[in-house]
């Protein structure tokens, strides 16, 4: 049990764990930025009056939201080389998978945020002579994003945890690094519990911060 808990195996392998954490953070950052950009586009498409666009965006969101992330990772990881994009590599295809997958979730958050802005704001924007596009850009989106920040950040915490799923294609993120050491040194208990503590501490700090933000942030 804990009697023979060996911390040396953790401290001796900090560099491997740190490299893994960098991959985890890279995945999280790219998926957040890419997901929000693509998600915003999808949300605008979904709300557009041009029906084919809104149907297309709707199908996209439904498809990704009803498929498990692992299956999406497999899709891109195995399909990229076959369609002739070996150059992208494992990390690249996983980054694409995460971005496209997260975009579907961000789209729904952003759509709800945009819809929470009252119609009067849009009318006022149009009345002062802004175009549709300008109203969206300068009136609706800034307010919508401000309202959405806590939800977007909560989704980012979920995403941070989900990046551990790259384990299934053997990409060396934090969890996979911990797993490799655990199997190599036969120290499963120490490594898994340490990894759990690290994830827990990071996520709880982030979610406490989001909670604090929520209190003082809404317009």
């Amino acid at each position, binding site marked *: 049990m804990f009697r023979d808990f060996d911390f040396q195996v953790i401290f001796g392998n900090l560099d491997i764990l740190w490299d893994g954490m960098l991959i985890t953070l890279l995945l999280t950052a790219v998926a957040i930025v890419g997901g929000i950009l693509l998600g915003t586009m999808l949300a605008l498409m979904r709300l557009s009056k041009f029906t084919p666009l809104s149907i297309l965006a709707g199908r996209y969101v439904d498809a990704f939201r*009803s498929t498990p992330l692992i299956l999406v990772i497999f*899709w891109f990881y195995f399909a990229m080389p076959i369609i002739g994009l070996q150059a992208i590599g494992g990390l690249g295809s996983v980054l694409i998978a995460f971005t496209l997958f997260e975009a579907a979730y961000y789209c729904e958050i952003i759509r709800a945020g945009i819809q929470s802005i009252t119609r009067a704001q849009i009318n006022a924007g149009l009345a002062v002579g802004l175009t549709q596009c300008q109203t969206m850009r300068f009136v609706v989106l800034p307010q919508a994003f401000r309202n959405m920040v806590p939800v977007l950040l909560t989704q980012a915490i979920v995403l941070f945890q989900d990046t551990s799923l790259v384990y299934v294609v053997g990409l060396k993120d934090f969890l996979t690094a911990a797993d490799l050491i655990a199997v190599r040194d036969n120290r499963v208990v120490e490594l898994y519990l340490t990894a759990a503590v690290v994830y*827990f501490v990071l996520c709880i700090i982030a979610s406490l911060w989001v909670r604090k933000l929520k209190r003082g942030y809404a317009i």
Partner: protein
Amino acid sequence: MAMKYNWDWSILLCRSPEADPTGAVEPGTPGSGATEFGGGMGQTFDTGAECAQPYFDWIVSGLSWTVIVACAAWVITFSLGSVIGVSRTVENKTVRAIATAYVEMFRNVPLLLQMFIWFFVVPELLPEDAGRWLKRELPLPEYWTAIVCLGMYHASRTAEQVRAGIESIPRGQTHAGLAMGLTRTQVYRHVLLPVSYRIIIPPLTSDFMGIFKNSSVALTIGVMELTAQSRQIAEYTFNIFEVFTAATVLYMMVTLIVVTIMRFVEAKVRIPGTIALGGD
């Protein structure tokens, strides 16, 4: 760009005469007996013929394991989630603190890691007899582990929904119940819970869909569910587009069926005179 890929949708229909759904895990295992390689299925190994394995049966078996694991996990999620959700709303500070600790603990560690901890770490930390029983004597340990892990992980989410449902009911209802002479338990049983469950049907449905999708994480500890089977077929045939399309379509179909049923249920049990919270 030139694409070298042999489309063959027919592999999805491969069936073996002596279909054995659980046998899907075994094929290819070295040392599983030279006799098998000698005759029957063995002869298709070397030629690379399309129907080397009963892929159709693998997919069916995968889908049924996905459904079984998800439904069993949901039973744990719903009951435990309800208890914890209610605990987060009671007056007793200790009970509330325990429930909060549960929710925070299970919500802030990745599911995949929880799966590993249940499967590899928990048997080590238990008293020796219990650990040995888990590792050696329990049949299908990975399936039980997956069910318990998924159930407890999602219970933390369902608990939050249950709590939100209870808290959305005006305090006046509780007071009215107490004033009528009901005990606190009776207030929960007859006033708060019947209303809040009906309010939170939409978020509970998406929680269930979450369990259903997250059951794919169980493939990491060896549960041969739909995603695992489709990857296995992809590795055997290299027809990845066909097999992953089939899996994706199956996931989408189940989602569609569940959402349709739940929409019907929601309409059936809607409290007259209210608009459902959380719906579209």
